[in-house]
């Protein structure tokens, strides 16, 4: 920002300060933004004294926002006075020693609010964080949205921070991080979430090339601190501690003075930073509005997020149009003005974060105008209303352009109407009536055939192809829509030179609707009911008796539709495993650092969709497994790896994929592999296996999941992995999954988790025991068989063993465990279901198999929770309830009751 620009921005700020409505915190916070930008600009151009004055204003404004001063009006007057002094200073260049002395500490430590210039702000900082109250003029929905969206933003930030270590991505990463933080800062200041705002501010200043080596770690800690701060503001936790230490660290890392070249890098990646909110100086808008031919720009931000941004912002625009229409009849309706402002503000924020700077610029300018309208400075009618309408239309165009960009890789340049509109909006915001020329241009544009012709050169690549299309268009549409149309047609050519773009993964655009989770669950439940009723009807014997051929056919049709509906219902709960996977990036970073190993995480299959509950539940086990993979799996240091002929940097793969109706997640490291001899030794030591027992490789590795193993300090140093592995297995089993290990000495270890597609439906075998029916999840069954006569041997007249293929398997009778009368007495008349639990096989004796079917799981309700041996219920096709057996628990209680039996020395029969 040059001197005249500063002056101009300041002028606007003064004006805004004078007119500021103290009851509206957004105005105040936009003032604050303005001064902050000015502060940055002044520091850059080495006007330390002016910057100090800015900071003084900033501090006062903070105090006003936080309601920390008794006399808010007085404080605002102070701000005005300081600003006008600053104005004099900038204009006349007169020295300001006496003023600077008022705020002696400010220039030294602006990033560390613990050491502010005025004692007032010290108490302010602590008071504000001690009891955060939601500003009265901010509506709850806004706060809620903020609190629900930000965790994802922080995750995103974390991913970016991790990229900082890669030299080729660094510049882009810094830029996007700055954009993100700036946005967060703005929003948190509106919500008076001071802790977050301060952190953002301090961190923003830090993000200048070259980054000190320690920065990424500090940044990660900052993100953690913000998370806890968010939790605090959300009322979920206590006030975060240790913020001041973090601030001190940030201040220490902060570059001492911003050199010119730094200033350059500073400015280019984050245009949002420099723009003063009240009035953007002409020179700044210029790059946006250049008349020189533009080829369209590749998208730089996160494509996934941009994809989410499109429907969201369209929704906002629709709301905006509705509000605008309402304002057409009642120009001063506060509610609609607020809604309108919020729509533009959100679009601006998101666009800034996604680096869609043109959209941001337009939204920003409209927002400024609307802000004035909300203050009552400008009446939103006539020209102003018209301009806002146009801005809405143009924004929609541009967002459509982004959508095209997602498909083709290039965003078409914005409409030629944009610079003019931005100018007009600014003029209106400044309270001027746009000149006649400006007025007539938009009006004339649609009508005059010359106007579209003039806009064509903006897309030179497109001309050749697009010309016929263009001329065929009705003249009235051309002014705006011609811009995006040729771009679509010309896309292949335009994209060609950009083929080297690293992230040209083109995403399919989908419309998305946000739905309340409860409603979704109810829908899924109801569809489940429908499926059951349908099968009850179509399998009803009465109906079959009277059925005619057409009826049977129609029932078949009904059945098909119902199944489709059910599949659809299930897919509603599915979400990609990405969020969980991305968290692991951070984990690897932390663990690698702690253990001093070099390590990279390779993700694949993040798109794989899983039931939401599974995606959430798989996080913990993955954390354990990945930590183990780095900590124990990889070689202790790079030398050892190089000696083994591997690259110095360890590698951990995290994959997800579909196979045969299940989801597989694999964690694979290229480390030492499991030491099977050590595991065997340990197992023998602990009496888990008998001497000379022959175990398959798989069985040996599975030993590490046994509870005893995990708590063992070390087997040897080599195979000490297994910390918490029993927990891993428990968690995965709770998700009805299984985990398996394979390992090659010296090559690494692979954990494979197999998960069901959904938690709501399982495959089950229906067995009967006496008069009762039970469902055994197919997943937990190893096999089922009818024993040969004499294959079941009684042991000590207490327990029973099934001898099967030379293996002795303990056998339990379900009827005895559950005290059911009338079950088969001789095992050879019944069915033995062999299940595996904790690596041990156990047989369960039932009467017979009734069938196999897909079962929609129901809970038995709170009052029936924790019935041992029963994990839930299901509605059977006949409408009755069937109980789902919890095989593991069933085996345990069978063992217990048998032991109890043994102790009492009674016979099996009597207890049963």
């Amino acid at each position, binding site marked *: 920002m040059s001197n005249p620009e500063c002056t101009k921005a300041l002028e606007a700020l003064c004006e805004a300060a004078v007119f500021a409505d103290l009851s509206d915190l957004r105005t105040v916070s936009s003032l604050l933004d303005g001064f902050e930008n000015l502060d940055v600009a002044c520091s850059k151009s080495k006007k330390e004294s002016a910057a100090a004055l800015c900071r003084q204003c900033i501090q006062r404004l903070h105090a006003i926002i936080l309601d920390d001063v008794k006399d808010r009006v007085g404080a605002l007057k102070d701000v005005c006075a300081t600003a006008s002094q600053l104005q004099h200073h900038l204009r006349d260049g007169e020295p300001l020693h006496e003023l600077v002395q008022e705020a002696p500490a400010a220039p030294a430590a602006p990033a560390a609010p613990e050491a502010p210039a005025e004692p007032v702000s010290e108490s302010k900082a602590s008071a504000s964080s001690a009891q955060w109250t939601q500003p009265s003029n901010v509506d709850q929905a806004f706060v809620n949205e903020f609190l629900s969206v930000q965790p994802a933003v922080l995750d995103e930030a974390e991913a970016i921070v991790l990229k900082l270590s890669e030299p080729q991505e660094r510049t882009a990463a810094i830029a996007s991080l700055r954009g993100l933080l700036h946005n967060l800062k703005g929003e948190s200041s509106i919500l008076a979430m001071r802790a977050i705002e301060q952190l953002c501010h301090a961190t923003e200043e830090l993000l200048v090339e070259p980054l000190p080596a320690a920065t990424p770690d500090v940044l990660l800690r900052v993100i953690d601190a913000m998370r806890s701060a968010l939790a605090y503001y959300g009322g979920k936790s206590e006030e975060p501690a240790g913020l001041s230490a973090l601030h001190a660290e940030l201040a220490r890392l902060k570059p001492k003075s911003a050199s010119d070249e730094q200033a350059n890098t500073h400015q280019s990646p984050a245009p949002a930073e420099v723009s003063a909110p009240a009035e953007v100086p002409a020179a700044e808008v210029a790059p946006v509005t250049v008349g020189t031919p533009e080829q369209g720009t590749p998208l730089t931000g996160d494509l996934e997020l941009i994809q989410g941004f499109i429907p969201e912002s369209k929704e906002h625009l629709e709301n905006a149009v509705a509000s605008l229409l309402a304002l057409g009849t009642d120009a001063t309706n506060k509610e609609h003005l607020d809604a309108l402002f919020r729509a533009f503000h959100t679009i601006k924020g998101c666009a800034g974060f996604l680096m869609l700077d043109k959209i941001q610029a337009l939204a920003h300018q409209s927002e400024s105008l609307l802000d004035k309208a909300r203050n009552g400075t400008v009446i939103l009618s006539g020209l102003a209303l018209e301009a806002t309408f146009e801005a809405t239309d143009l924004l929609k165009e541009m967002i459509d352009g982004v959508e095209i960009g997602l498909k083709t890789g290039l965003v078409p340049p914005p409409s030629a109407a944009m610079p003019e509109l931005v100018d007009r909006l600014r003029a209106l915001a400044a309270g001027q009536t746009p000149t006649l020329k400006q007025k007539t241009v938009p009006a004339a544009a649609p009508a005059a055939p010359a106007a579209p012709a003039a806009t064509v050169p903006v897309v030179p690549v497109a001309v050749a192809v697009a010309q016929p299309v263009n001329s065929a268009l009705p003249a009235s549409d051309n002014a705006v829509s011609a811009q995006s149309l040729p771009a679509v047609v010309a896309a292949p050519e335009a994209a060609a030179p950009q083929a080297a773009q690293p992230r040209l993964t083109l995403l399919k655009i989908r419309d998305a609707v946000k739905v309340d989770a409860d409603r979704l669950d109810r829908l899924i*439940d*109801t569809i*489940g*009911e429908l499926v*059951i009723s349908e099968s009850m009807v179509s399998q009803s014997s009465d109906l079959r008796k009277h059925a005619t051929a057409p009826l049977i056919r129609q029932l078949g049709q009904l059945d098909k539709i119902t199944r489709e509906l059910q599949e659809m219902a299930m897919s509603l709960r599915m979400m990609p495993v990405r969020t969980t996977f991305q968290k692991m990036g951070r984990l690897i970073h932390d663990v690698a650092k702690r253990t001093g190993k070099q390590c990279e995480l390779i993700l694949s299959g993040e798109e794989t969709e899983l039931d939401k509950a599974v995606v959430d539940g798989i996080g913990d086990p993955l954390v354990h497994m990945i930590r183990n993979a780095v900590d124990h799996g990889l070689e202790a240091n790079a030398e050892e790896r190089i000696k083994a002929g591997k690259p110095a940097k360890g590698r951990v793969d995290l994959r997800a994929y579909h196979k045969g109706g299940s989801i597989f997640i694999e964690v694979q490291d290229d480390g030492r592999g499991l030491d099977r001899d050590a595991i065997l030794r340990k197992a023998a030591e602990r009496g888990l296996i008998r001497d000379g027992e022959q175990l398959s490789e798989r069985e040996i590795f599975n030993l590490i999941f046994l509870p005893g193993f995990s708590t063992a300090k070390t087997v040897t140093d080599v195979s000490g992995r297994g910390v918490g592995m029993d927990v891993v297995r428990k968690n995965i089993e709770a998700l009805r999954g299984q985990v398996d290990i394979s390992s090659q000495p010296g090559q690494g270890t692979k954990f494979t988790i197999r998960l069901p597609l959904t938690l709501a439906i399982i495959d089950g075998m229906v067995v009967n025991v006496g008069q*009762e029916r039970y469902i055994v999840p197919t997943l937990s069954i190893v096999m089922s068989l009818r024993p040969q006569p004499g294959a079941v041997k009684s042991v000590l007249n207490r327990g029973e063993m099934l001898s099967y293929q030379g293996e002795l398997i303990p056998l339990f009778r379900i009827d005895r*465990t*559950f*005290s*059911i009368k009338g079950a088969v007495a001789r095992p050879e008349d019944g069915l033995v279901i062999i299940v595996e639990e904790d690596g041990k096989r156990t047989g369960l004796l039932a009467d017979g198999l009734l069938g196999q079917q897909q079962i929609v799981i*129901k*809970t*038995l*309700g*709170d*009052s*029936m929770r*924790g*019935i*041992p*041996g*029963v994990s839930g*219920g299901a*509605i059977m096709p006949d*409408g*009755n*309830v*069937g*109980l789902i057996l919890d095989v593991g628990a069933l085996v345990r*209680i069978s063992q*217990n009751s048998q032991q109890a039996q043994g102790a009492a020395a009674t016979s099996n029969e009597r207890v049963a």
Partner: protein
Amino acid sequence: MSTTTTKPAAGTTTATARAGRYLTFSMAREEYGLEILKVQEIIGMMNVTRVPRTPDFIRGVINLRGKVIPVIDLRRKLQFEAKEDTDRTCIIVVQVQQGDTPITMGIIVDSVSEVLNVSASQIEPSPEFGFNISTEFILGMGKVDKRVIILLDADRILSTGELNDAAASVRG
């Protein structure tokens, strides 16, 4: 009864609160009442799936239009003699509050009679029979036209604690 000391006090203070409409039903020639506000619906007897290792007063679970709800046998709960189900046997589905969570459950009774208005003056505190006879789930006694109706506290008939204790005792 451990609650004997607090019972009379509670009885006097909330007698008015207990006035209202009651669904009456009979069991073993005695008449009982349940607050109508707690009753969701009355359904005929249906197939009940027995749940293993639960106390015997829990008959099992039923499918109430897709929701699995527990059903308790009031005869067993009140330690009456067991009796075969008849075509008058039915299940009263009640919604009770257990702590903070609402729970839907079914109560099997011999037969339902009518809905009766019981005013505060007609309610007397539950009697004390001394040891061995539990009266904790009795709200009070309603005297209407020479009839005596035992007003039950649906919230207390089945408590999670009781169920868990029962499950634990079976487990242990």
